[in-house]
């Protein structure tokens, strides 16, 4: 699938999802091109997590379809096409004894030492490869799990609320890592966040989701229209800022 000579990385078509008679996603369609860096924002309960679970194949679709590189999410993940970094990884205490190297290696089904080394070098975790993950800070742990996601040479990288529970410096490093992966490795990245201001500075385009797709816009438009987008998403700016803070 190609548009203007570029391949489509993710195609979502007329996707709807209900949970216990509640509409969670209502007829959503969009396309993400290969190498695009996309922010997915929206209020809690707006369907962001559900959309992620559908894209990663953790939940089966009910109506409409999702294609990742032309494959269903279930097929795409079996081919190691989806790199996923969930939010809770940074926040929860991992009960499993493991070194950084072991965690990164577990991201790849077949052992390919070179791919694993590359993933560790690209994310700058190689220097503490023998340390136990228990001893890492939130920011370091996050890098390790990005390295783990990168180990399978995915075609897309999906990150859920990645900066929650990570300090300011680590957040900065994190965004510059994503920028590198996007620019140098042409990685397609989808980042889910509440923090529209931080994300808007980084990404190429933004998908605003509140059960329906409220708006999709490119970076340039965002600067001018961010107030309107916020209004459409949250009702008012104030509300949004409030919303943001109780998540910290």
């Amino acid at each position, binding site marked *: 699938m190609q548009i203007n000579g570029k391949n489509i990385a993710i195609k979502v078509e007329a996707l709807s999802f209900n949970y216990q008679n509640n509409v969670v996603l209502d007829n959503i369609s969009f396309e993400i091109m290969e190498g695009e860096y996309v922010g997915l924002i929206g209020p809690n309960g707006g369907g962001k997590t559900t959309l992620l679970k559908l894209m990663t*194949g953790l939940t089966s679709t009910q109506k409409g379809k999702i294609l990742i590189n032309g494959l269903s999410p279930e097929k795409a993940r079996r081919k190691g096409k989806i790199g996923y970094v969930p939010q809770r*990884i940074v926040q929860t205490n991992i009960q*499993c004894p493991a070194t950084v190297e072991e965690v990164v290696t577990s991201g790849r089904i077949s052992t390919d030492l070179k791919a694993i080394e590359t993933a560790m070098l690209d994310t700058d975790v190689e220097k503490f490869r023998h340390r136990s993950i*228990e001893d890492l800070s939130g920011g370091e742990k996050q890098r390790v799990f990005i390295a*783990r996601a990168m180990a*399978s040479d995915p075609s897309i990288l999906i990150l859920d609320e990645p900066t929650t529970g990570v300090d300011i410096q680590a957040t900065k490093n994190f965004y510059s890592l994503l920028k590198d992966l996007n620019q140098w490795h042409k990685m397609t990245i989808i980042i889910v966040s509440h923090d529209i201001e931080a994300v808007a500075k980084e990404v190429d385009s933004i998908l605003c989701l509140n059960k329906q797709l409220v708006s999709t816009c490119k970076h340039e438009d965002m600067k001018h229209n961010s107030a309107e987008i916020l209004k459409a998403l949250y009702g008012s700016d104030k509300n949004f800022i409030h919303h943001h803070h109780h998540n910290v």
Partner: protein
Amino acid sequence: MFEIFHYDFMVRAFTAGFAIAIIAPLVGIFLVTRRYSFMADTLAHVSLAGVAAAFLLGLQPVLTALALSITTALTVEKLRSSGKVLGEAGLAIFLSGGLALASVLISASHGINLNLSSVLFGSIATVTTTDLWLILSLGLVVVLTISLIYRQLFAISLDEELAIVSGLPVRRLNQILVVLTAVIVSLSMRIVGILLVGALMVIPVMAAMQFKKSFLKTMIISVIISIFSVISGLFLAYYLGWASGGTITLISILIFFFASILSLRR
């Protein structure tokens, strides 16, 4: 000191004990990290019903216990993965059910000579040649299986959801894990006894985890702790006439305490 090896039954007990000491923590580490430790105890109670049934019907006790606990393990795993019954609550039903069935079968078979205390707490004198061959051959199968799917099992221990997105056949891996657990439980009941099988799978692993090493090293340390507990436990059990299972378990708990103190002081 080594005159005890002049007795065939002691040689059998030590060989069987050594084999079980290796395989129990090898599978146990995946139960502990997946917070599924209770599974071993549940299957042990179901195995007791299997042993009782075998005595009543004149079947081979280890094989009967094995068949019943594998069936139970797969049923429990199916219920758990479908989300229909809460993990622990589901296990509790099977644990009590197994014990209840065992007690009914034992009471129904009065007159049949089932040495209950040796089944419950382990007895070194009861390892038969058939048991030994079963333990060695199935033990080898366990070791081979673990070495083949070690990486995958580690991935689901780290995080099940991530493992699914990485394309691993998580449901199948979970099934293999519970079947291996059932195998070990049935094999080890002669040595450690049904009530303490879970201990051998869990306590050496918890002791090894205190050292905060890599997963692989933790696994190796837990096997060493387990071998030490079993061998020293069997010696003590023989010379002092104690129940082997209880002695082995107490030694491993002592090691766990020492390991915790060491890790706190670091």
